[in-house]
């Protein structure tokens, strides 16, 4: 019998549950009024829930009693609740209202003087150096800046002041940058794939280009060898007398040549074929390394140094050491 009465109501998924859980269902002697009344109650509950959700700010304000009013309203409605469906809505309203109540309670937290974020913001703006314009036309680009604009270093100023509130560990930075936690993925596969196309690519490239690259390298190597030859020859002429480094590399006729000599000589030092040392006057000297000593030299302590020279220094060297000719003869023009 009840089923026919509930045809006006839209059939719901848990219709049967509603049927079973219906509390004092025997009371609905006035069927049509009752259905209408049920709908009305549910609608009112939904309104109350909406009110609470949409007007959260209002509800939270300590100056209104809106939340209490809602609860009183709900109390009245609940008197007429007969079915679980309405009761469910009542429960939902209770949940929403309780959340709000909890928030209201937490607002009571500030005893003593309250804290107003708006006032705080105003004080901060002053601290950060807000330039308050008198006319109030701060320009449309500043949102809500009816009264001025912030200087560029505003946030830096604030940050400097509040640094002392933080016990942050200073960050550690390698000069060469950071790393990934995982080791790099193995690269072999990609290399193999690359080798195949590159072979063909080399064939397409003009062979002349290949020759040029080699000739550059060869030129440097040839120069270095040549200079080694000069060094050895000079040394053999008088093995006991030390060769002054400056006298060896300086070309009194050309600053550029001098620089090149220094450059090429450095390769000899690097490869352990020549060595530099300071004589009794603390002037640098250079000497070829004996054949047998080359191996030993590589394991002994090696030092690095940086040599710089300017045209002014070059002239001073020529004058001081009275260098008339260069030991290292300039190479033949067509080699360069």
């Amino acid at each position: 019998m009840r089923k026919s009465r509930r045809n006006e109501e839209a059939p719901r998924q848990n219709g049967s549950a509603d049927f079973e859980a219906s509390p004092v269902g025997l009371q609905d002697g006035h069927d049509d009024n009752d259905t209408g009344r049920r709908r009305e109650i549910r609608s009112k509950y939904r309104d109350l829930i909406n009110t609470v959700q949409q007007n959260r700010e209002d509800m939270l304000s300590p100056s209104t009693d809106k939340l209490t009013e809602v609860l009183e309203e709900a109390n009245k409605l609940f008197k007429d609740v007969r079915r679980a469906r309405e009761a469910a809505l009542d429960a939902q309203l209770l949940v929403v209202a309780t959340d709000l109540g909890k928030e209201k309670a937490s607002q009571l937290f500030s005893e003593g003087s309250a804290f107003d974020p708006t006032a705080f913001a105003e004080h901060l703006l002053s601290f950060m150096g807000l330039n308050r314009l008198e006319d109030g036309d701060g320009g449309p680009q500043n949102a809500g800046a009816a009264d001025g604009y912030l200087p560029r270093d505003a946030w830096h100023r604030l940050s400097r002041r509040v640094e002392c509130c933080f016990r942050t560990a200073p960050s550690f930075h390698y000069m060469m940058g950071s790393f990934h936690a995982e080791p790099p993925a193995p690269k072999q596969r990609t290399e193999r794939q690359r080798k195949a196309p590159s072979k063909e690519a080399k064939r397409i490239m003009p062979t002349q280009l290949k020759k040029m690259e080699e000739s550059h390298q060869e030129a440097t190597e040839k120069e270095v060898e040549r200079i080694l030859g000069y060094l050895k020859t000079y040394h053999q002429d008088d093995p006991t007398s030390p060769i002054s480094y400056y006298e060896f590399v300086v070309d009194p006729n050309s600053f550029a040549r001098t620089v090149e000599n220094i450059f090429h000589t450095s390769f000899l030092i690097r490869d352990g074929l020549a060595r530099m040392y300071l004589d009794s006057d603390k002037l640098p000297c250079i000497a070829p390394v004996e054949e047998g000593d080359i191996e030993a030299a590589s394991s002994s302590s090696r030092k690095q140094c940086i040599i710089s020279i300017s045209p002014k220094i070059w002239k001073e060297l020529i004058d001081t050491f009275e260098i008339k000719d260069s030991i290292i003869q300039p190479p033949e023009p067509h080699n360069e």
Partner: protein
Amino acid sequence: MQRQPSSSGTQEDNEDSMFTQPSTSQVQRGLEKLTPAQVDQKTSEVIQYFLVKDQKKVPVRRADLVKHVVKDYRNIYPEIIKRAARTFEQVFGLKLVEIDPKNHTYILINNLEAADKPSPVECPANPKLGLLFVILGVTFMKGGVVRENVIWNTLKKLRVDSGEKHDEFGDVKRLVTEEFVRQRYLEYVRIPHTEPMEHEFRWGQRADMEVSKAKILEFMGQLHEQEPQSWTQLYREAQASSSSSNSSSSQR
């Protein structure tokens, strides 16, 4: 050596749950099998890992540490951490702190007391610090929890609009709700039953360790031209937290 690409949290969580803290006797036995130089080397590697990870201020997880650095030495893990913590304190003036005993995550903080006043040297400060201060400050003054709207509105008054790109901070919303949260300065939690969805801000675990409530209250007092004591409950809370942080020691 097999290397698996690091996946989402699940794999690492599994690895961490597989890692059981070795007992003291296990550690002892493990130490006997290694030379002091080996232990020192591994400790140094752990220290370097921490220092580099600290650049982004993202906490270090025990699972990552064991997987990437400690590896075969995991049986003496407590000893390595102990030594690393000691080195941090004595050599770097930093404190190794486990901010999450459940998930075993660590951060580094400064072991030295922060200066009372800003440094007389004009060195550039990170502007993000100012932004963080505003959020942490308002949250603290409002009792430790605050609805996100309060923060967004306050920032708007400071010309920082979460909906627009800011000259200094860029995508403010992302910075506040993602980066600061990842660094554990803030917690950004959903408020249940809110329609549309709202969140609330709280102090994060890193902030609890790194930030001095007393100093914040002091600055608040200066700004409002009030004594910090006028906020009685907050003052009490600030005093309590500063004394507890002085006595706390790094764990493990």
